[in-house]
């Protein structure tokens, strides 16, 4: 049984947490992701940018009642990468290919 390589973009605690949250919702605000991951704003912002640069997230910045708002949404490429990552994980957890 061959172990599949884990996507280095997703194989990081915070980036994986962000993508796992976004896979279950239509879109989420930066503050929601910060609240759920308990990350610092600076760290989260850096990791979101990395995911955005990889084409895994769509990030929209807008103003709501004069306050800046960052809205994140997973892209089709992000969904495919996440699915690939989970499949690769399964090869490590179940090396004999048993279900």
């Amino acid at each position: 049984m061959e172990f599949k390589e884990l996507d280095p973009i997703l194989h990081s605690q915070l980036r994986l947490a962000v993508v796992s949250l976004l896979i279950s919702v239509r879109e989420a605000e930066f503050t929601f992701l910060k609240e759920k991951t308990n990350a610092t704003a600076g760290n989260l912002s850096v990791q979101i940018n990395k995911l955005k640069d990889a084409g895994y997230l769509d990030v929209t910045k807008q103003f709501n009642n004069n306050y800046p708002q960052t809205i994140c949404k997973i892209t089709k490429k992000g969904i495919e990468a996440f699915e690939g990552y989970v499949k690769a994980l399964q090869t490590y957890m179940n090396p004999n290919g048993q279900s």
Partner: protein
Amino acid sequence: MTTQNENLSPNDSMQLINSMINQAKNNFSENGFLYLVWGWLIFTCSICHFIFLKLDLFKQPEIVWASCWLAVIFQIIYLSRQKKKEKVKTYSENIVNYIWISFGICMFIVVIIMSKTNNWPMMNSIILMLYGTPTFLSGIGMQFKPLVIGGIICWCLAILSVFIPPVYVLLLLAASVLAAWIVPGYLLSSKYKLQNKQ
């Protein structure tokens, strides 16, 4: 949470994915407020309409239903304010919103059809049936059983309504909103408050 990946084992990754998906799934954003507003409004209008008819107090007792237009205006303002506060949009919320929009459109069409055909006694039975559909589907979408039960009760009352005198169907309307919107509304409200306390 950090960005370290050296110590992230496949098991850790899987647990993290499960925990985040559950957190997103358990994020309950329905506070039940609009269920309570509409529930109490329809309940009050039905009872008042019934009393006015029974006591023969007004020439046009159905005028009480005009208050629903005020509720529509209130709802539009309330929802536009709530939308600005939303931190997350889920797929199920999106579907539930469209279910209620389609219900509003159906209600509007029913009123037009009934006013044109002058078949008012049948209207309340159809409304009871219509109340059941979005309530039942919202319950399924939100995985909230009281709404599912409320929807089924509305359908049962719709069947019952054709076997009783039309004036008493108004009491069935009151009973249907009590079961479908008021009781689930309070349960949704307490669930929402409990989640926000944690």
